[in-house]
């Protein structure tokens, strides 16, 4: 921030560098990341792999996919921890001010908000599944109070997310493996698991791609959390460890159980084993620690996009509308869940190229083309900083990467769209920036000067 004191107008340093006194420890980052992962939807995601892979395949795909995610987000997370700003503010350098607005809305402004609605609805479904005969746990009613509940920590900001994660994460990661171990033993044990075959076997590559696709958005927006890192490596390492060690545990839990007992899910199995209280704890609190992060990131993206509206107002707007959507889905009032999920998945196709552009710009373009070797001063932020209004090579790389990631897998189903998009974004951005530098073509269209509030 330099010597100049800047007022945090939007709250929670949404547009500013996080000051040193607000930075958090490695353990804090690890807990917040694990809080995102501690959710029933991740277990259900693992279960999806059981239709294409056997026990060994699920194990390998989970580990290899998670390592790939760990590497990707180590790079994005490090940008956040060096610079102390959110994903959307970082993107101002590689895509320009308006490019960052558009990318931020796609990454989090819409897709994270949609995920908030989906997870809130899923919360209602889990509650009704555990306690079927209670008015308060009816899908629509539970979605309503659950959505309001999950807004509270996002309203507080990063401190709220962290405190809740500290409470939930250790218990969640003790309960789920205990439940899984008991469930596997009841269903024939390890020998039955190793003998079980998937319904429609597919290659390991399909499984790895699936795992990467599950969490690529999280890898892209890692800077939203790592900007609070006390030391540069705290946040990126926390991400790497959470995704490489803990994510496979959850995916394998869901996948193996599904393989042993097709059609079942761990939540229902736990209820059958008399672990209703544990399902309630992991369901309410686990869903909460994930969904508040969705809302938090969405609010940061909208602060970067619309002037004057404070972060907590965005949390209220997005949280209330997400809750209403979840209730409407639950009541079947004309909102199609399928349509929402399809839209969310479609947006998911457009996100990895942005990740590629972000990584390419910070680690290759700035040091190699512009000689900015020191990662701490590679990007400038703060009042008076001049950005391009649109940095067209970054935006073009995003568009080209998105088109390829969308169409190529339709023609060649074996090609992983997320990975193709990421590498296309990365390569095209480098090439276009190098072309601009070599030919003297301006890489920026127009300019934008950062205001006193960081907008």
């Amino acid at each position, binding site marked *: 921030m330099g010597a100049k004191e800047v007022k945090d107008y939007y709250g929670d340093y949404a547009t500013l560098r996080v000051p040193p006194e607000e930075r958090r420890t490695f353990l804090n980052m690890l807990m917040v990341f694990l809080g995102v992962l501690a959710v029933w939807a991740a277990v259900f995601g693992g279960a999806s792999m059981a239709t294409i892979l056997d026990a060994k395949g699920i194990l390998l795909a989970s580990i290899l996919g998670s390592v790939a995610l760990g590497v990707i987000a180590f790079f994005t997370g490090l940008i956040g921890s060096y610079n102390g700003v959110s994903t959307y503010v970082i993107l101002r350098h590689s895509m320009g001010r308006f490019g960052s607005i558009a990318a931020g809305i796609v990454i989090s402004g819409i897709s994270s908000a949609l995920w908030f609605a989906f997870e809130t609805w899923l919360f209602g479904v889990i509650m009704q599944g555990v306690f079927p005969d209670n008015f308060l746990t009816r899908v629509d009613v539970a979605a309503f109070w659950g959505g309001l509940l999950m807004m509270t920590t996002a309203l507080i900001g990063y*401190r709220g997310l962290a405190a809740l994660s*500290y409470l939930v994460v250790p218990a969640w990661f*003790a309960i789920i493996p*205990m439940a899984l*171990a008991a469930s596997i033993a009841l269903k024939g044990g390890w020998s039955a698991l190793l003998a079980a075959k998937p319904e429609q076997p597919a290659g390991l590559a399909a499984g790895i791609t699936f795992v990467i696709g599950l969490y690529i958005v999280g890898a892209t927006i890692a800077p939203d959390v790592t900007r609070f890192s006390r030391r540069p490596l705290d946040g990126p390492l926390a991400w790497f460890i959470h995704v490489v060690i803990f994510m496979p545990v959850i995916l394998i839990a869901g996948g193996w159980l599904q393989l042993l007992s097709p059609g079942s899910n761990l939540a229902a199995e736990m209820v059958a084993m008399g672990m209703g*209280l544990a399902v*309630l704890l992991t369901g309410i609190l686990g869903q909460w620690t994930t969904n508040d992060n969705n809302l938090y990131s969405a609010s940061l993206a909208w602060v970067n996009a619309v002037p004057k509206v404070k972060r907590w107002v965005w949390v209220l707007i997005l949280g209330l509308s997400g809750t209403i959507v979840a209730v409407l889905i639950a009541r079947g009032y004309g909102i199609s869940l399928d349509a929402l999920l399809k839209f969310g998945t479609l947006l998911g196709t457009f996100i990895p190229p942005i990740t590629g552009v972000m990584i390419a710009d910070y680690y290759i373009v700035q040091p190699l083309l512009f000689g900015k070797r020191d990662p701490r001063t590679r990007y400038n932020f703060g009042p008076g900083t001049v950005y391009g209004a649109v940095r067209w090579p970054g935006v073009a790389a995003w568009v080209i990467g998105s088109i390829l990631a969308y169409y190529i897998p339709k023609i060649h189903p074996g090609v992983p769209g997320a990975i193709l998009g990421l590498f296309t974004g990365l390569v095209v951005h480098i090439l276009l920036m190098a072309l601009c530098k070599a030919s003297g073509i301006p890489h920026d269209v127009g300019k934008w000067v950062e205001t006193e509030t960081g907008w």
Partner: protein
Amino acid sequence: MAEAFTSYAVKSLSASTVLFLVTGLIAATGAQAFSSHFAYFAVASALLVGVNVARLKYCSGCDVKRVGEIAVQAGWLVTSLSLVYITMAPAKIYSMNTVNLTITEALGLILLMIGATLLLKTKKETGVSLSI
């Protein structure tokens, strides 16, 4: 002040370590099935909390903020892990008899209170945020 508080935190966490082992032992002997799960959990919990006791002792010369940070992190750990006993012990799959179940639940609640008290006291005496 830092020394007095460190001493309190070390005592709280040492007591928690012992209680995790005792609770785990009772749960493991009381459970008719899958008793080893509670035994593994108890040992893992005691180890994790024990590491924090060592961190505090190693940190005896640290300032009160640093001590507070460790105490907050350890306090959350005790609070969170106590919830595992409270929610998992009643599961019918473990077939725990009433006496053992009652003792396990009571010890789980005591651990919960120790953790919560440590958190509140740390915040009050060191000023360290609970979200550190």
